[in-house]
């Protein structure tokens, strides 16, 4: 990665499927479905749906009425006591994240309270959530960013730890970066974007809780990138096809793959 290999642009193809105000999306490796949080901003009548490979879109979980932007993250591998397919989500209740088992049956709300410092998350947890990997330095714990700039790692119910705070920044999408030198100073860090569009910064958080801000510039336009969500690409069969310049995305737009998927909503203009 170091050295900035430039790949060909990708082509995305829209599916002839639309979804009710989607926000969050992730892949469930257990049943090979996509999970979506939908019906922004009310969460009514249901918060979560699955999309199967054959295009069937149906309810997942009875969660209902969780307001706001519901970000989700599905554990891709088992670890830290979690099963692959277990899902974390933001929303529902201030200062809490939700844990939904892979079956979609029931859920639990976990309070973000650090007993070591007796601190409870005061913000809304509609920033970001990420199920880290057991081998990426974060032990497969849930990483959570909040509207007041707090970054948490959540091991289990009643075991949440405040890692760092980025004052006055509404943190958004979050990812953990593997401990690999090709990622430079981001190796083994949490990297988060921000909802503060004017900031156009990303923030890395080391395991020691050191926060560093970064401005990443478009290598063509020179404009700063506003990071809403971040992910590490993962090996998939669909990436093995080769085109000039290396692997190619053969990626439909909006929802769905192969390769990766993005949720987009064109009903949120009012808040702009």
């Amino acid at each position: 990665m170091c050295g900035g290999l430039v790949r060909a642009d990708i082509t995305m193809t829209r599916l002839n499927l639309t979804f009710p105000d989607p926000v969050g999306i992730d892949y469930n490796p257990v049943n090979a479905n996509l999970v979506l949080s939908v019906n922004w901003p009310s969460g009514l009548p249901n918060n979560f749906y699955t999309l199967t490979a054959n295009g069937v879109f149906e309810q997942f979980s009875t969660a209902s009425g969780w307001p706001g932007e519901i970000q989700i993250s599905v554990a891709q591998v088992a670890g830290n006591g979690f099963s692959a397919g277990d899902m974390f989500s933001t929303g529902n209740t201030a200062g809490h994240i939700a844990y939904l088992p892979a079956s979609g049956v029931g859920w639990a709300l976990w309070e973000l309270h650090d007993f070591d410092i007796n601190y409870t998350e005061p913000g809304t947890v509609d920033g970001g959530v990420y199920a880290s990997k057991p081998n990426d330095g974060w032990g497969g714990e849930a990483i959570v960013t909040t509207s007041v700039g707090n970054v948490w790692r959540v091991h289990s119910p009643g075991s949440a730890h405040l890692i760092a705070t980025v004052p006055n920044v509404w943190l958004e999408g979050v990812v953990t970066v593997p401990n690999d030198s090709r990622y430079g100073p981001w190796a083994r860090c949490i990297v988060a974007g921000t909802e503060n569009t004017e900031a156009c910064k990303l923030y890395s958080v080391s395991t020691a809780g050191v926060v560093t801000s970064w401005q990443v510039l478009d290598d063509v336009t020179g404009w700063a990138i506003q990071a809403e969500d971040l992910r590490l690409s993962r090996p998939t069969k669909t990436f093995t096809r080769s085109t000039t310049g290396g692997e190619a995305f053969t990626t439909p737009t909006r929802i769905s793959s192969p390769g990766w998927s993005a949720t987009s909503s064109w009903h949120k203009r009012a808040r702009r």
Partner: protein
Amino acid sequence: MVGDILVAQEGAPMSGLPAKLYRVYYAGGNTFKGHCIYTASEGPGGTPPTWEQFCFAPIVVTPPAGTTVGIVAGSPSNTLEDQGEGSEACFIVSRTGDAEPTLTVHFSYPPNPPTALYGCDYYLLATDQFDNALGQVTDTLVFPNYASWVKLQVVPVDDRQNEGIEGTENVTVALVADPAYTVDPRHSQATCTIQDDAADNAGPKPVSYNVYLITPASGGYYSNWSEAYGICNDNTVTGFFNPPPNYSQWTPHACRAWYNAAKVDLNPGSSWWTWGYGIRDDRVVVGSARPPIGGGYAGDYACWWSADNVLTLYSQVKSGSYYNEAVAINDSFVVVGSGKNENGVYQAIRWDFAPPYSLGSLASGNNYYTTVSYAYGVNTDGHIIGKSKTSPSASTYHAFRMYGWRIEPATDDLGTGTGADTDASEALGINCVGETVGATHFNTASGKRYHAFHRSLYPGKSVAFIDLTPDKYWGGATAINNHGHIVGAYMQTSSSAQAGFIRYNDGTFADLWNLAAPPRAGLVDLGSPEAINDNGFIVGVGHVYNDGNYEARGFILVPAW
């Protein structure tokens, strides 16, 4: 590729910032750069998308060929029946395949005992995924362009005490096959439930009523004569009064009146005769006006007064004719009443904002020319009630309940309590859910009697007449409010004086005289209740006794809780 950090830029259509996907790479030192690998184009509807989250997924999503439609129950799938449009129970009807064109989907309501009945126990309101209200749907749903998902909200209708209370009922909606789509066999039907609410009771009943008059009890025959006919939900009353000192001169003035404020005289001139009969919640009054012309009068005009008292006369059914009367108005400005046509025959008339339009009659062929009919009420939905003869020569009337502009003899004739066409009925009051009250003949243990009745609007409920005064010699119900409380008049025996009654929605029957707190403003009877609003206020016509004469007084009964 594997292990690249990808960043989605949300995009801000309003500020021109496009949604982009970047591959972020480490450029050495403390430098990271991003290479844009995708810029979002237009989304459905031509609106640029904004991005929230993305993921990697080793699957290829293939929409099914053609269009498949499925239905599932929402969450929660249960609703209390008193939640009305606040109900969260719903169905989700979704389609796969091309979401761009419109798609018409049909459904049915298979029995699923205990089965809730559409229109009777609930109805469905549709909203698409873009929060566009699609209105009430019955058996057909049209997906708008780009909508892959439509919510059908279950709007329960509270059981009415007058019709019987039902327990938890099932709402099952099934998709009906159509060449335009395939029904998903796993989601071909779904069920929600409507749970009986514990509040299904009569609610608090007044312990008594305080009696107020719209004119003083003192007077002298016509002087201070008054009658009250309508009351809206801010407790404004309409009716008419004869201002003193007109002891022998009859000059009715329409008015608005209140139990706790001075009335407003709506009469446009001292020589006019005006009557107020109906009033709606914005205080618009309908009635009748008899303007002077030369030394006489120009006949009667149905009319209405705006909230700021501007009088508008409707055209007469027949030029110069008398007894053109508007008696009821609803929120949509449907105005009904009666007037005489060119043959001198009374006709049920609808005015609204237009010239008088005859609603016809219950006679075969909707005979307009020679068959008498009267309209007495209209509810929020536009259902009109009244009475009509069933032929020009019929000796009795039948109650009718109709919708629109023409009485349909085949469907609008409510028949009679005995079932015999030669007996009589008349519909005098209707509420927001179509419960209708009036009077009709019943066969009783004492013989055939003309009694007050209640009747539901909807099939499947108590479509039969319910006798509200079964042990009385005579009775008639004049009004029903939206809670189902009914007022009217009755005679205990053939020699009894006419008395006013209230029948609460739990079936309790009470003589208003016994509930009215003495000294009852000097009245000697409360014999003709005419209207009841949703606050339980009752208006009508009673009498005082002055100098050997019984003189009418419009009364207002104010509940004391």
